[in-house]
């Protein structure tokens, strides 16, 4: 059953990713990306990372991609226009990408002692220890500082986003 689920959702992932490339309208790409992310969440679930699955849905699908769609709507981005850019990406980029893919896959295929994922396996197969507890214990004891720092980072990001995105004459508008 694990295998079936994996195959199904892996297929979804790849389909979504390919669709992201093929679609010319940003909003469709965004939706296909959402598909990829949600099915990735399912894969996380299969790998016994429930919390990450939920976080994936909430953060990526629920927050980040909403942001993307918002921007698409705001800028009313239409279909891509055909432009005459440099051809470097085709000449250099594709072979390079293929090479990277090939190298990584060879490494993966030659990797020794890779286990396998079965149904309903938790992260560390101790009874009673849910993935959530394991995560939070580490996160709130050993990695507390990085955690807090991340929150600060996000705060800064919010401020930066506001500062960047506000309209140049926003001050004037507020003035009157």
């Amino acid at each position: 059953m694990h295998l079936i689920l994996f195959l199904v959702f892996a297929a979804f992932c790849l389909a979504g990713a390919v669709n992201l490339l093929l679609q010319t309208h940003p909003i469709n790409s965004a939706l296909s990306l959402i598909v990829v992310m949600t099915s990735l969440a399912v894969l996380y679930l299969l790998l016994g990372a429930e919390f990450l699955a939920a976080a994936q849905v909430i953060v990526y699908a629920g927050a980040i991609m909403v942001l993307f769609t918002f921007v698409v709507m705001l800028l009313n981005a239409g279909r891509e226009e055909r432009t005459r850019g440099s051809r470097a990406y085709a000449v250099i980029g594709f072979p390079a990408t293929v090479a990277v893919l090939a190298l990584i896959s060879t490494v993966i295929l030659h990797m020794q002692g890779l286990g396998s994922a079965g149904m309903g396996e938790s992260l560390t197969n101790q009874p009673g220890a849910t993935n959530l507890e394991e995560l939070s214990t580490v996160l709130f004891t050993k990695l507390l500082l990085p955690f807090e720092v991340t929150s600060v980072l996000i705060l800064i990001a919010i401020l930066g986003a506001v500062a960047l995105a506000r309209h140049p004459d926003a001050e004037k508008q507020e003035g009157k």
Partner: protein
Amino acid sequence: MTILQFVFWSLLKVIVVTVVLLMGVAYTVLLERKLVGRIQNRWGPTRVGPFGLLQPLVDGAKSFLKEDIIPSGVYRPLYLLAPIIALSCALISIAVVPFGSPAVTGPGGFHFFQIADVNIGLLVILGITSIGVYGIALAGWSSNNKYSLLGSLRSSAQLISYELALGLSLVGVVLRAQSLNMRIIVESQSKHGLLSWNLFGGFQFVAFFIYLMAAYAETNRSPFDLPEAESELTAGYHTEYSSMKFAMFFMAEYANMIMVGCVATLLFLGGWTSPFGDLIPLPQNIVLQALLPMFWFVLKVFSFLFLYVWVRGTLPRFRYDQLMNFGWGYLMPLAILNILATSLWLAYK
């Protein structure tokens, strides 16, 4: 039990629950119409069937039979996709809701009264809610109409803003239960009935208040029903929708109401447990044992919905800036304070 049995039972549960939920949706509509009617000193629907009890069915039939208009100039795929997203997101969440006592189990510890017992149930619900935004956003954008777009932008912004307050308000409860599993959360408040509910015994009334406000905003209900503020935006994001697609949005809204009610019941009102705790001895009859908790659950959800409609009938609509101000300026800080207080109290205990 074999895989096949498992699949069979699961499918059965899914179908039954969905049907019940949809019926509930239909009759919530009726409830609202009648209640609001009474509040506004009129009868509400009375003609179709006794006390107009068949009204919902007729409404459903009507919306089925109406002509399905797809305006030219809409972005078709999304225009079609949007209501489906909205409704499915509204319906899926019920999967993790335990609406009956887990004490009564089928063969092989099989639970009748909950489709899936996920140990991150709460997060699942939140996640699905956050996906639900797309339904509205895409609907508004794809129907290529300024009212729709404005409405959708408004409602998505509103949803996102109030989702924060909502989630934060739940943290207090989670802290007390020390789990995200719905069943454990309910059992954590099953000791002394009413007194051990999070609402009373857990001192989470502030959280409950925040949750209430956020829930109204989440479901675009008055006093926060700006996305479909008729006076400003005709019908907001579903202006361009008609017949079945409109009905889908409609159902989605009411299904969301019910979901919110369920969550509130589970998190604050002790779920399926009886408000009297052990004062009423548990009946020996297995059927009663199974049904009594469901009764309590439904009763609580119903009262919550009643409150919903009551508020709608009573309060005027907010202005948009007031709405945002309220959400970010009051609910958020309040929720954070609540978390602080709760955690301090727990640490002290």
